[in-house]
């Protein structure tokens, strides 16, 4: 196999190509024309990556380093949809804060490329490299509004803690490699039969710590609220969903296809992380005054729900996992989480005032900022209501059906205790999601605020992104069949 299989890598190449093209725009075109061109190239890159991932045949490439299969396609699509929605909402808001758009979009595209690479990586080295690519891009994106001290703090925290986490990840990979003698997932699966040894367990622990950090799962979640709050909202929206989905996909591939025989080791570990994450995330979200911080904590909680499916995979007799239902439920939940959370974050931009020549705009921050929104902006409030209902897990929305499939997998695997814990924490979560609905519909804005709000126009590009994610949330709730079946095939392809 000497021919280079460019086809498999084409989605990544499309994204990176677009990133370079965007930088070139910065070099060769005057400032005034930058904006339209960069946006155009970004959309072109995202769409062609989607098409490439969708249409090209699957297969293994680069001597087994990259793989294109239903799982990678599923995660790629979720990541690119998130990138698309973030892009829609980005340009206006960031241009108003004097962020150089070519740099911004180049970094966004590189981060997306890293995530797609992560979803496709088929050995430990590629996996590690892609984590680094996406992380470096995101560190800079968090701090890209340089005049804002909170943005600086966000980038700094993320960078320092993130470096630690990648250290863990690398150490864990080293130990697994030491125990199995292979960095390739198939090789690991062949050479690690039987009970987990102490070395494998230690490696697994460190590996999971690294991934838990990237996913934002307890007890490695401490950075999440500060980083998510400080980063510019489109960046927060993008990273809160895309990193999680990509990392979850990679973790799923690593465990199901690389370490299926070690389920006795990782199953309970992930179950513990999921349980702790649900509790910590929901309790953390309860006490927040800032909606953005609340959503950050809620994203921690949802990472816990998504992990339930992996935790209940179970070990079958043939050295494979017992059932695809659990991991498939996790994947479906990641997709549901993607559409509902990105919409909720972007809504904060939509609910405030759009930037204009006179002012840099204002985002909604606290619950009180949303008071009376149902009266002032009925459509915005209605879309946010759909997203909140979905996050709270109430039908007919994506969040409900996602939880439903997760609970089914847990009850089926005789781990109803995880489902019951999820039920109890979901009840707690209703309290803080409902506060948004209460503020929008049941409280009135003070007269002064109502006047100043009506002075500026709403950020319609953010509004478009919110509308799309609200529509997708309802679609996944009412007609979940196709995506669920896709998720099932994605997991089945690993078995």
């Amino acid at each position, binding site marked *: 196999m000497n021919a280079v299989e460019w086809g498999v890598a084409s989605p990544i190449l499309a994204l990176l190509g677009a990133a370079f093209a965007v930088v070139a725009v910065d070099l060769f075109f005057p400032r005034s024309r930058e904006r339209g061109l960069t946006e155009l190239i970004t959309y072109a890159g995202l769409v062609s990556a989607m098409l490439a991932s969708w249409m090209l045949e699957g297969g293994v490439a680069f001597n087994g380093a990259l793989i294109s299969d239903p799982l990678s396609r599923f995660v790629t699509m979720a990541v690119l949809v998130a990138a698309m929605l973030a892009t829609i909402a980005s340009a206006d808001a960031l241009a108003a804060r004097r962020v150089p758009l070519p740099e911004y979009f180049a970094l966004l595209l590189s981060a997306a490329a890293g995530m797609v690479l992560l979803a496709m990586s088929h050995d430990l080295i590629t996996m590690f490299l892609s984590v680094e690519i996406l992380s470096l891009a995101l560190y800079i994106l968090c701090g890209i509004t340089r005049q804002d001290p909170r943005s600086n703090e966000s980038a700094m925290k993320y960078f320092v803690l993130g470096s630690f986490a990648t250290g863990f990840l690398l150490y864990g990979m080293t130990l697994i490699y030491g125990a199995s003698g292979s960095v390739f997932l198939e090789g690991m699966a062949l050479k690690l039969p039987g009970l987990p040894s102490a070395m494998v367990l230690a490696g697994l622990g460190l590996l999971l710590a690294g991934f838990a950090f990237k996913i934002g799962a307890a007890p490695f979640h401490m950075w999440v609220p500060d980083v998510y709050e400080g980063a510019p909202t489109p960046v927060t929206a993008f990273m809160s969903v895309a990193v999680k989905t990509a990392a979850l996909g990679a973790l799923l591939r690593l465990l199901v296809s690389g370490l299926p025989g070690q389920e006795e080791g990782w199953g309970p570990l992930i179950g513990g992380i999921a349980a702790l994450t649900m509790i910590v995330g929901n309790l953390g979200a309860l006490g927040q005054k800032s909606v953005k911080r609340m959503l950050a904590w809620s994203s921690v909680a949802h990472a816990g729900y998504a992990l339930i499916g992996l935790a209940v995979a179970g070990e079958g007799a043939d050295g494979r996992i017992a059932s695809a*239902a659990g991991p*498939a*439920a996790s994947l*479906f939940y990641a997709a549901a989480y993607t559409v509902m959370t990105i919409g909720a974050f972007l809504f904060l931009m939509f609910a405030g005032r759009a930037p204009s020549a006179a002012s840099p705009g204002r985002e909604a921050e606290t619950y009180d900022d949303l008071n009376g929104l*149902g*009266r002032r902006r*009925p459509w915005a409030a209605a879309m946010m*209501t759909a997203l909140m*209902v979905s996050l709270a*897990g*109430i*039908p*007919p929305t994506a969040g*409900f059906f996602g939880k*439903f*499939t997760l*609970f*089914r997998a847990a*009850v*089926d695997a005789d781990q*109803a205790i995880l*489902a*019951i814990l999820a*039920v109890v924490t*979901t*009840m707690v979560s*209703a*309290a803080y999601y*409902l506060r948004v*609905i*209460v503020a929008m*519909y*049941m*409280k009135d804005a003070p007269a002064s605020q109502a006047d100043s709000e009506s002075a500026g126009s709403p950020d319609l590009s953010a509004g478009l992104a919110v509308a799309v994610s609200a529509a997708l949330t309802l679609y996944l709730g009412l*007609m*979940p*069949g*196709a995506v*669920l*079946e896709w*998720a*099932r095939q994605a997991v089945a392809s690993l078995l």
Partner: protein
Amino acid sequence: MDNVPWLSILIWLPAVGAAALLFVRAENAVRAASAGVSLAAAAVAGMLAVTFEPAAGAAMQFPESFSWIDAGGLDIRYSLGMDGIALSMVALTALLTPLVILASWKSITDRVRGFHASLLLLEAAMFGVFLARDLFLFYVFWEAMLLPMLLLIGVWGGPRRVYASLKFFIYTLAGSLLMLVAILACYLHAGKSLGAPTFDIGRLAAVLPSMEGGPQNLLFAAFAIAFAIKVPLFPFHTWLPDAHVEAPTAGSVVLAAVLLKMGAYGFLRFAIPFFPAAAAAFAPLMIALSVISIVFGALMCMAQSDIKKLIAYSSVSHLGFVVLGIFSFTEAGAQGAVLQMVNHGLSTGALFLLVGVVYDRTHRRGVDDFGGLAKPMPAYAAVFFLVTLSSIGLPGLNGFVGEFLVLKGAFDAHRAAAVVAALGVILGAVYMLRLYRDMFWGPVTAPRNEKLPDLAGLERAALAPLVVLIILLGIKPDLVLRRTAPAVEASLRSVTRPAAVEAPHERR
């Protein structure tokens, strides 16, 4: 005619109507459109009630079924069907929704469009709950009721509306999420014994009763808690007085007349036929709780000075009779319970409408705020009197037959419980008559009440159908009983005649 999906039309008509309201501008046009949609739904429901075939036994009529979600190993169907119990509840819902729209014509002036859209969405979800024949579909409708009701209480309610609406929401959600886990366990159990898991309610009722004792008790408890919160049964009732007091008139009426019935409906439709052994084992506890609800609710009524709160607690007491009748496991008791569900919907719905009338005029609802109202408002006093008598179960009016049947059934099964419950009937007469005396008799106590206008046209129109039915069902309760009998018998069969439903494997 046979191939028309009437039940789907019934459910989706109000839902589509709610969406259509978004495109109507003028407030009066919104009200008229909303009334029109609900009247159309009532016409469909009336047509179904007439064509419903009582002689067809417990079989589901007007069935519809097609695959909804068939992926990832799930088999979820959109299937609907109607038996006598569902029919009576659907008819009640279809009757009351247009009435509350009439009653809200003048009293709701803020965000009219949102109000009517919420009300119609709620109606659609309520129809869905009663007609669903797939457990997943049922759960979706069950939860879909939460948001419109939350908004009805929280946006158009009284001063403590936010607290009351959140309390309602979280209590109900707590119960229903536990039920969701139990529903999944049922689904998977059916998969183990049938070979293929199913949410089909009929097939689940055939296979679940053979489940062994331990899991059966747990699952029954999960369902029973969800339904007990909805009924509400003591000690799960604390959300009810808050929700009722703060809700606008329309919310109170729908809540009392239909939403509370869903708990009792759930017992009859799911908890008992699915888990007969557990239901029999838990029956003493359920009967004790229902008797406590009857007496406790009645005693709480005696102590209230807020009319709405008084009626709210009277619901706790009356719904206690319903649960008592169901868990007597006698045909008389259960038939009486279903009849009481209808009766309570009519008379308590009417009571809340009546309180709304004076509240709209005075913005007060303390018992002390009124006195001698019979003088300025004679027609109002007359209707109130009739409804009061219906509520306390005077022979000749609807309340009597249901209460009598429940007590007869309970007396056959648990004599002591029936004796204590009968105390609730007496207390009921005391608090309702006392309320009537304080509000209507004697001289007008407050000068501001001297010139209160009597019932207006819209109010008369809203109350008239209820008055007619209160009298009609008193004379001819058979209108309901004849249609519900086969369904009630079927839902108790697994408890009263366990042999008849055993061995589902051979059946399949």
